[in-house]
Structure formats: C-alpha cells, structure tokens
C-alpha cells in the first residue's frame, strides 16, 4: 500500500482539486495546507494547460488565469517541495500529457519524486496509451491513476485490473463542472470494478454540494470535487482560503 491508498483506509476519502497557480502560486500553497487541515484526504493540483479539452468552463478559466499570472510547472514543483515540508497529505498532479511529454517524461517524474508528488492523473492518457508513462512512473514510484467513464462498459475489467492507488470514476458524460443532477448509475460502475480489484473507487465530475458528496460517497470509497472549489477561488481570489476551508469542512462533515 502507499500513501494514496492509505488515504482510503477506514474512511471515505475526499479528494480536493485546485488549479495550480490560480490566482497565484502563494495562494495555491496556502489553499493546499488549509484544505489538508480542514479534512481533505488527498489534494489534486491541476497543472494549467492552454487547451484543457476535458475541462468545463470553470477550470478552463482557472487555467487561463494561472497561465496569465505566469504559472509554470517549474514554479509548481518548487511550491510542492515547500508544501511537502509542512504536510504528509497525498499530493497528485492532474495534467494533460503534453506538459509532461515536452518537459521530458524522465525529468518530470524524477522531479515529482524529489518534490513529494505521489501520483499523476492524466485525462488524455487512456489505458491503450498508458505505456507512454508506465515505465518512468514505476521507476520513480509515482502512481499513475486510472480513469473509468460511464461509456467504459466492457473496458472496466482490464482498466481496473491494472489500476493502482485509486480508480477515478467519472460520474457522467461530458467535461468537468458543476451539475445539478448526477444521473449516471455510478453504483453499477463501481460494482463492476469491485468484481476484479480491491483498489478504492473515487467518484468525480459534477459533484458540488455536501449533499451530492454524501450520496456519491455512500456508493463509493470517496469523492473528488474540483469545479465547486475553483469557483470559490474565482470569486474570492487571494481571499479564498477561508471560504474554501469552510466548504471543505462542510463536504467532509456530510460524508
């Protein structure tokens, strides 16, 4: 077991996402510590990308803000290193494959290991292309998180069998973002996973309220919230630490 799967032991895990460098690196650093202290179990840091095709408008705009303010992956590595000195919470990078590939896969993963990143979520790297990173991730002890979607069906088995850390279960079709209703049959998807692996399942995409978090946590091992937190950051900017803290406490309390 590693730090990521440990976060699911004996409890439902709350994975909290923010875009790195939105509105600036200092605020991201404070937010990570604040979320860790208020009950988040895993922090997912989005590396801002010029063309985030799996994101809805909220995270697209967060990426734009972060890039405009000069965020780079090098600055994020430095920030993560500082954060790692203050907390043991599992830290993940969520990034499209291009920033890793162009930075250099080997260099990227070795810096991840050096700075204290536990895993990566790469939404445009499906099972068939995992090999792109598998070797370097293995070498540096970085967990490559697998995703399954409502359209995965017969693909679930092979994906789940090879999964590590946790499985990111995409709740619904479409891109990330707040949804008033989550109508996919998530429980059924998770049942399929459970047939082949004990690796925990966390549900993401569209969860924005403590009530939704509770409902989804009931049928899974944990939940992932991104856009709802990023919306608070969009609204409050550098003053978002307190509102985000309150939100994390409310979500964790409901789970």
């Amino acid at each position: 077991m590693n730090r990521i799967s440990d976060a699911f032991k004996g409890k439902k895990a709350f994975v909290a996402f923010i875009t790195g460098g939105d509105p600036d690196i200092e605020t991201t650093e404070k937010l990570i510590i604040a979320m860790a202290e208020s009950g988040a179990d895993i922090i997912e840091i989005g590396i801002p990308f010029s063309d985030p095709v799996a994101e809805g408008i909220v995270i697209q705009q967060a990426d734009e803000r972060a890039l405009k303010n000069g965020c780079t992956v090098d600055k994020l590595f430095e920030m993560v290193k500082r954060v790692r000195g203050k907390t043991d919470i599992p830290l993940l990078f969520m990034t499209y494959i291009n920033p890793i590939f162009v930075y250099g896969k080997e260099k990227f993963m070795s810096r991840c290991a050096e700075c204290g990143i536990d895993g990566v979520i790469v939404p445009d790297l499906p099972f068939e292309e995992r090999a792109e990173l598998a070797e370097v991730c293995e070498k540096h002890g970085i967990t490559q998180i697998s995703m399954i979607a409502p359209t995965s069906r017969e693909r679930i088995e092979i994906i789940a069998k090879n999964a590590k850390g946790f499985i990111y279960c995409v709740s619904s079709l479409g891109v990330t973002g707040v949804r008033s209703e989550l109508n996919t049959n998530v429980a059924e998807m998770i049942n399929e996973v459970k047939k082949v692996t004990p690796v925990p399942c966390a549900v993401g995409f569209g969860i924005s309220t403590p009530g939704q978090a509770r409902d989804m946590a009931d049928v899974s091992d944990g939940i992932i919230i991104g856009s709802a937190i990023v919306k608070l950051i969009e609204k409050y900017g550098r003053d978002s630490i307190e509102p985000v803290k309150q939100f994390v406490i409310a979500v964790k309390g409901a789970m």
Partner: protein
Amino acid sequence: MGNKKGRFGEYGGQYIPETLMNAVQELEQAYLRYKNDPEFQKELSTLLKDYAGRPSLLYFAEKMTDDLDGAKIYLKREDLNHTGSHKINNVLGQVLLAKKMGKTRIIAETGAGQHGVATATAAALMGMQCEIFMGKEDTDRQALNVFRMELLGAEVHPVTSGTMTLKDAVNETMREWTKRIHDTHYVLGSVMGPHPFPMIVRDFQKIIGEEIKAQILAAEGRLPDAVIACVGGGSNAIGSFYDFIGDAGVRLIGCEAAGLGVDNPKNAATMANGTVGIFHGMKSYFCQDEYGQIAPVYSISAGLDYPGIGPEHAQLADLGRAEYVPVTDAEAVEAFEYLSRTEGIIPAVESAHAVAHAKKIAPAMSREQIIVINLSGRGDKDVAAIARYKGVNIHE
C-alpha cells in the same frame, strides 16, 4: 503508411479521455467493416460522382507555365467540387459511415468554413442533424460561410475560448462529443486527431492523388516531378501525396502557413517551428513553448491557422519523403491575385500557399518537368478578407 495500430512511426495514437475510447473503437470497427463492403463503396462512389462532381479536372495551366517559363504546371481542380473544396470527399464518406452506424447527429469543427459547409451539406443530403463549432474570430473572418451553413440547416456555435480559432473549435467539438456520444458522430475535417481519424480521412481523400496519377499519365504519359499542396492539418496534402509515396521520383511538397514570417511570432508553420508533442489525440509536431503550452498561431488563412499537423505528415517529414516549406501571408496573397489574373481562377487563400511555392520553384525547372498543384478550394469565400488585407473597402 502506418505500421503499429494507429501509428505512423512514433506518431499518431489515441490520446483522448476514457469517455471517448469506446466511441473511437466503434468507429474503427465500423470503418474496417464498411471499407470492404461493396454496397458501401458503391453508394460512396455514386455520391462522389453524381453529387460532388468527381473526378475533378486536371487542368494544364498553360498561361502560368508560359509566364513562369519553367516546369509545366497542372492544377488539380478540387475547387470545382460541390461546396468548393476537397473537404466534400471526406465528409461524404464519414457522414455515410455515421449513418450506417445508426448515428442521427453530426458535429464538426471548422476553420475557414469549408469543412463546416461541406459537413452541413452532407448532413442536409443525408437527413442528419448538424452542429458546427467555429472560432469566434473565424465566424467574423468568414461571415458568409456561417450564413451558408445556416442556410443548409446547420446550427453554428461560435467558440469564444482560447484563441477563438481552429484549435479551439476542435477543443469545443471534442468536449461536445464527450457530452453526447450515443447518437452523435464527430466528422473530423483533417488527417489529425486520435486514431482512426488520420487513417479514415486519408483514405477518403486519397482519391485526389489516384485521379492525378491517372490523369497525368493520360495527358503526359509520365508521372509528375512534384506534387504541391497546402498543409494545415494536412488532408488535401495527404490526399494528393498518398498514391505517390511509392514513386520515389515524385517530390511531395507541403506548404505551411508562415503568416507574417517564420521568424515572426505570428505564424502557423508547424514543421518550421514546431517540436514533437501530444495534443488533440495524437503525437505529432506542434507549435508550442518549452512547457508544452500550445502556441497561439496565426495565418491570413483560417484553414491553415492550426498549431499542429497530421501524424502521417510528421512521419513523411522524418523519413525525408515529403518536404514542408513555409509560405507567408504576403506570398499567398500575391499568388491569389496572380492565379486570378493569369488563369482566371480564384483559388482559396489556403491553396494560394501552394501556388506561391510553385511560382518559386517552377522557373528553375525545365519545360520537360511537370508540377501538379492541388488547388484544394475556390476563393470566393476569401474575397472580402483579401480586400480587407489590401485595405480596399468593398462595403457600401
């Protein structure tokens, strides 16, 4: 070419969200089934012949040849196809395939609007619902094409994210596809994106090169010395090149959009300035920075205003089988006017990039040599933009 599944050497692949994986796999299976289905092929050739007007002409540009006083120049007249460009070849194939797959709704990106118009046309013909995503900047540059698509019954969504051009239109169409897959087919307009699109689009476009070969053999009794085409994503270029790849004596030249110049930040010359990356579902060359952020590219031609290039072109470039050369806005506009005055043919500003390069190399060649330029589209859509470029006010 292509070797490992979905790969052209190291390029290509399927770098897309899991949500879309079953959709592209179903598409691949359906395509491989219908590709060899005589019924499907018969329906498609009938559409290409009776509806699109194929084969397109191979025209000996005698005045241009005399004027340049070098190689003999032939124009492959894809501009004469129904809807005015080569885009119809791919669209008829894909929409027919989508229909066979039981899809009822078609979505597509468009840059200049040529692919959007072709898609809207095929959707109208085959009774499919159609939605087109087009960068806001391009809906302004190509307002006439927006109205044209609407006339054909399509809904046009201006895309306001990012640079509001072709790459953002692709992003938005991909996002739309992940939202609604069961009844929807994404008609990708170029030899790009995740496998199987680069293969499917190339197969539907390779008819251009096959016709060129038969026509030039009939006219001249020999193969050309060079085939020249413009390259954005690269569909008309691969369509022209593909049948000649095995003919080592035929130079294959792709002309990319250099905008204000390859050394100016405002360009879209992927081969001249790009590096290998992974974007829009494929590994290929892209204009990007040291951190892999995709560059905001520029060209006067909305259809070439794209920061990447299809994976098969990346392989052809690495193998040295095809050459890729930059052509600036100024050179393209000059060629646009030149062909209009010399031959009475107004080319698409995209295709004018290929004409411009032919003008550069033809004079140094002999009269015994032959250049074929693929005239991928007609220029009616560009008249207003060229007037703007030249500072001519054509509005009353």
